[in-house]
């Protein structure tokens, strides 16, 4: 029996309203790209550039001896290192707590770990966690500035910001503040394991706010139809080459084996349909910028020739990560209550 066999609603019902979100509690937090107004976004992009150009010794005075904790429940190379370098470049002291070498192994909860870090003097926490929503829990329990460095399958806001910086450098060089039409006319295709990707979610929520169109591309198992309803400016195009032909930016994603939860995937079939190789790129998108949040699996979602080729901006993304995270860490500790968020 289908849901359609229920009788049609007889009346328009007034029902309980959904309460407004209390998040973020702390103006320095960055939990979701949706927490950022376009002004706040512009400020981060501009500060990233300014801080990058700053004299290193002058820069170390900005957060000299402030304490920042990196709390990592998942392995990470790029995100962890760039956050750490960013915080240190501002003069902050950092400490890394990872799930495999701490009391987390003994069963300490996220709440207690957060309260412990706060009691140790941490003024902000950078959190990478395997559960969606973990950053919200940590922020509500500690009320510290929390920077979401990736929560489960949900969001990875600093990745979307560094992706944006990379796109702007290629498509809108020299731009200052961003606004609602900055990326008008730009189509960004995100390809692959959308379902399990926090990078995809943050990008698909951020880019349409600047006027970009986001195309999602992948097989049904990794890209359910309802993904298109995640927000405005998002559409699904299952034909990879058709998507490529419309795109100025192509963002390739890794298949997240650790989150497949028993799903069986035919990798040969996947490669045939969705692998970005030289021929495809040359034929369908010869000028597009190729992005990948890493880690890349050469020979699976993209070939080595594409990863190392002239259209690849993958290492620029990594480089931009340090600049963006420097600006985000500065904001975490300098954001004033009631001031710019």
């Amino acid at each position, binding site marked *: 029996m289908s849901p359609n066999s229920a009788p049609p609603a007889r009346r328009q019902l007034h029902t309980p309203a959904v309460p407004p979100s209390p998040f973020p509690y702390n103006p320095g937090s960055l939990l979701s790209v949706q927490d950022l107004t376009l002004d706040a976004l512009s400020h981060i992009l501009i500060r990233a550039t300014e801080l990058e150009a700053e004299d290193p010794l002058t820069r170390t005075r900005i957060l000299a001896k402030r304490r920042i904790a990196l709390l990592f429940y998942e392995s990470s190379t790029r995100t962890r290192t760039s956050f750490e370098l960013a915080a240190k470049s501002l003069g902050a002291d950092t400490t890394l707590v990872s799930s495999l070498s701490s009391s987390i192994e003994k069963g300490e909860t*996220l709440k207690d770990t957060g309260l412990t870090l706060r009691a140790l003097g941490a003024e902000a926490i950078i959190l990478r966690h395997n559960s969606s929503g973990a950053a919200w829990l940590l922020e509500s329990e500690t009320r510290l500035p929390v920077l979401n460095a990736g929560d489960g399958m949900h969001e990875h806001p600093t990745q979307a910001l560094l992706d944006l910086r990379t796109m702007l450098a290629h498509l809108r060089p020299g731009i200052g503040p961003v606004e609602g039409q900055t990326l008008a006319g730009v189509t960004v295709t995100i390809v692959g394991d959308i379902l399990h990707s926090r990078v995809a979610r943050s990008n698909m929520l951020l880019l349409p706010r600047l006027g970009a169109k986001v195309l999602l591309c992948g097989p049904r198992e990794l890209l359910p139809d309802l993904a298109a309803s995640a927000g405005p400016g998002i559409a699904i195009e299952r034909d990879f080459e058709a998507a490529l032909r419309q795109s100025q930016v192509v963002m390739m994603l890794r298949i997240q084996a650790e989150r497949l939860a028993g799903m069986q995937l035919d990798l040969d079939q996947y490669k045939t349909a969705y692998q970005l190789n030289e021929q495809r790129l040359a034929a369908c998108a010869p000028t597009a910028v190729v992005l990948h949040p890493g880690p890349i699996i050469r020979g699976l979602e993209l070939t080595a020739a594409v990863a190392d080729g002239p259209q690849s901006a993958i290492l620029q993304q990594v480089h931009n990560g340090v600049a963006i995270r420097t600006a985000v860490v500065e904001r975490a500790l300098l954001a004033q209550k009631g001031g710019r968020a």
Partner: protein
Amino acid sequence: MTALVIKGGHLVDPAAGVDALKDILLQNGRVAEIAAPGKLKTANGAEVLNATGLTVAPGLIDMHVHLREPGQAWKETIATGTAAAAAGGFTAVAAMPNTRPVNDSPETTRWMLAPERGAAVRVFPIAAATRGSKGEAINDYAALKAAGAIAVSDDGLPILKDSVMREVLVAAARVGLTVIQHAEDTRLTQGASMNLGPVSFRLGLRGMSAESESSIVERDIRLVTELRDTRAHLHVAHTSTAAAVAAVRQARRSGLRVTCEVAPHHFLLTDEHVGLYNTHAKMCPPLRSAADRDAMIEAILDGVVDAIATDHAPHAVHEKEVEFENAPNGITGLETALGLSLRWLHKEWKLPLGRVLSLLSAQPAALLGMKGRGTLAVGSFADVLVFDPKAEWTYTAAQGKSRSRNTPFDGWTMQGKVHWTISEGRIAYAAPPA
């Protein structure tokens, strides 16, 4: 036992067809006499409750609660859970068997019913349908019924095997017990922590599809159809999807003994109320889409739903202060069911007061075969709710009687203030003086 007179109240007893000012005499745990105001014949020496301006109704019956005893007293005990029930206007609760150990034996059933548990109102244990609720070996229903079990269910651990479910329906029908099924195909909901839809996608949480509920309801109805001659009674617990309600509606049209309940959170909230990982909005079945929620309201208004049941599922504060995926399912409900039902079903959606009360009392009593409850006809148990159906108040979870506070309704406006809850002639709850 002393006698009690409830004087000057407006008696609403849908099962008895009464809706008028009456005085009521309760004696020896039963309703002894009902008369026009001032006309009781034998009220000498009785304690008098002045119910002028209040409504008097049969005590409410919640056919789906988790009292957590034996085994999880840090969440709730039979004493605290029934105190919460009394505060909410309930005089009888049917307790699910997912305790530790699982209530699959006459011994555990009798332990729950022992006076030492300190129950404030009547507890009716629902026994496990299968040994350890593992969905394999059927329990001895005659022995469980003799010990006091009112129905059988493997609530939370649905019976997936067709052959076992068929056997359960036949065996329960033989001894006249209702089979309550938590309809969830757990093969389809592995790792899922909310409703499957745009919201779960946005939040990056694995979702439970509507089909994971409706497919089990449809399978069970197919079995009841095959077993038509046995008079098997299937009751679908906490129905949450339009498709499941549609299946129940169809089964009823075919004359099958298939009934269902809806919880207040499923007729009020949607998956949007999960917000940013509010674990007080996590339960199973999960909060569904707005279309499903609206279908619950329609099904209540048009009479397909037989009972409002809370699925009262207390959990300690620390258990809910964790990552959404890791938080246990369930919310409390005993102290908010009446207030929410009157505020929304009655005031907002215009369901007559008598029908609201019937869904919370006479109908669950009838479908569980509780004799002498759900009505205040002379001779019935003196299970009485005295309340002000118009009074508005704000619910504060921290002031509740339950040991737990896991509710999404903290701070909500309620309608209908309980003044007294009387269990078999004894005052189980009296509102603190204003």
